[in-house]
């Protein structure tokens, strides 16, 4: 599995309230939520983002609320992967459970610039900044999580294991 796209870059502690503000939580439709994704810190994001693009941020990405609407909004906006220095733990679980690929890599998070073209190989965890030519080794998922991702989410994984 691979992803390749243009980078949208953010800083530390991007919280779930800015990823998808609570005023839109009266909907749980991913495509509806995607229209407002990131609008409180990046008004143009929803119109600028293209399918396959990549989000890069620094530490503690997704902190705050447990709302699964946050990774869902990012996924439905077209983002193919989020790279961060670290993720908040509930966001981390939620992203895996709904099938939004995420990868921790402090060096890549720091060095990759907005607008760069980046590709990611999920099997090896290798992140390549095609613009600068530099490669980074991201943290690969433990085997247990790989099984959930391979099943395309927790619900399918449970179905497969209960058969």
């Amino acid at each position, binding site marked *: 599995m691979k992803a390749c796209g243009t980078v949208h870059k953010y800083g530390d*502690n991007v*919280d779930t*309230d*800015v990823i998808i*503000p*609570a*005023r839109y*939580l*009266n*909907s*749980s439709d991913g495509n509806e939520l995607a229209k407002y994704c990131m609008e*409180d*810190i990046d008004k143009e994001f929803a119109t600028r983002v293209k399918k396959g693009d990549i989000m890069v941020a620094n*530490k*503690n990405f997704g*902190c*705050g*609320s*447990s*709302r*699964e*609407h946050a*990774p869902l909004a990012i996924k439905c906006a077209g983002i193919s992967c989020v790279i961060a220095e*670290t993720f*908040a*733990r*509930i966001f981390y*679980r*939620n992203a895996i*459970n*709904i099938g939004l690929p995420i990868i921790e890599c402090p060096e890549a998070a720091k060095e990759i610039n907005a607008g760069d073209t980046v590709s990611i190989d999920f099997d090896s965890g290798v992140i390549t900044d095609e613009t600068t030519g530099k490669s980074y080794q991201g943290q690969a998922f*433990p085997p*247990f999580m790989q099984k959930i991702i391979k099943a395309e*989410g*927790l*619900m*399918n994984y*449970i*179905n497969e294991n*209960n*058969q």
Partner: protein
Amino acid sequence: MGMTMTQKILAAHAGLESVSAGQLIEADLDMVLANDITGPVAIHEVAKLNKKTVFDKDKIALVPDHFTPNKDIKSAEHCKCVREYAKEHDITNYFEVGEMGIEHALLPEKGLIVAGETCIGADSHTCTYGALGAFSTGVGSTDMGAGMITGKAWFKVPSAIKFVLTGKPNKWVSGKDIILHIIGMIGVDGALYRSMEFTGDGIQYLSMDDRFSISNMAIEAGAKNGIFPVDEKTIAYMEEHSVKKYTVYEADEDAEYDETITIDLSKLEPTVAFPHLPENTKTVSEAGEVKIDQVVIGSCTNGRIEDLRCAAKVLEGRHIAKGIRCIIFPATQSIYLQAIEEGLIQTFIKAGAVVSTPTCGPCLGGHMGILAAGERAVSTTNRNFVGRMGHIDSEVYLASPAVAAASAVTGKISEPAELGL
């Protein structure tokens, strides 16, 4: 090697003799919780499962508390979805408007969680029940849905930071001031993926309501859970509220901690977190002149009876400053009724505050107290992120009920001492 208190609870629920940090386990759940925002997503997800029946109708709690009483048509549809699911599956612990409260005040009050249990909730502040000596943590809707059907959840066993609380806090220093101080010290990711285990002789001076506030905000330091040892106060609380059998776990003496942080509670002062992160803390005495427009007292962090008593002590015989809106939310119907019986509500209304039915409303910018551009609020809630309570150009300052009430009287960030209290 010894285990932390959290690790012992997890080991027991995974059927293992021992566990160690980093290990992936599957644990049995004693309680699985969702609300009107996260519940519908979970219900939609579980429809994908082959197995449709819930694992135990008594071990699921569905609490429509966020956008209730229904704030608009879409919210009404979400509540209806949760209500119908609860009815279809005969969920014992579904709480309708009129009997509900803010989930993290309601579940302990109804005795649904006791020491030694494991709980997941599709709400980040599910970590509140650590105050009772239980393992409880927030998850997303899919995890919650899976837990509701299977009765199990997977966890990576966390390492821990040990907080040794010593000494007796001064007058007007509450659990809220303690946790704000801690978050200011370690940062909003200071306990990321880890447990916060509280211990020390200072705990004896903390009421259950103080402890609920502290555990509640463990998530604001990124923690998986925040847990207290079980003492006489915990046991008295559980015996008053629950018929469930509890189990007391204690950390092993040789338990390994990533770090140990000692805090002398007697040195702490009323504390406030400036926008836009809970880690931006200052003591009120360092805050300077910060004029405000609104005060919110309530939420899963600070809407309990002691919080209301504390606010009433400050507001008794005083009046909210002209032009300031003070909105008070008792966290549950039972707390609301008790506040009426104790005369607290009378004090609030005479002081010029409004009192609302229990709801999470303003805390997350849902309804019942939204801020306009440029407005500032002092709030006893738990997050002050950009746009959290309304317009992206509004500001939220997090504080204790005492500081919030004093600020309502003066119209700027203040502590009770400024009123001669």
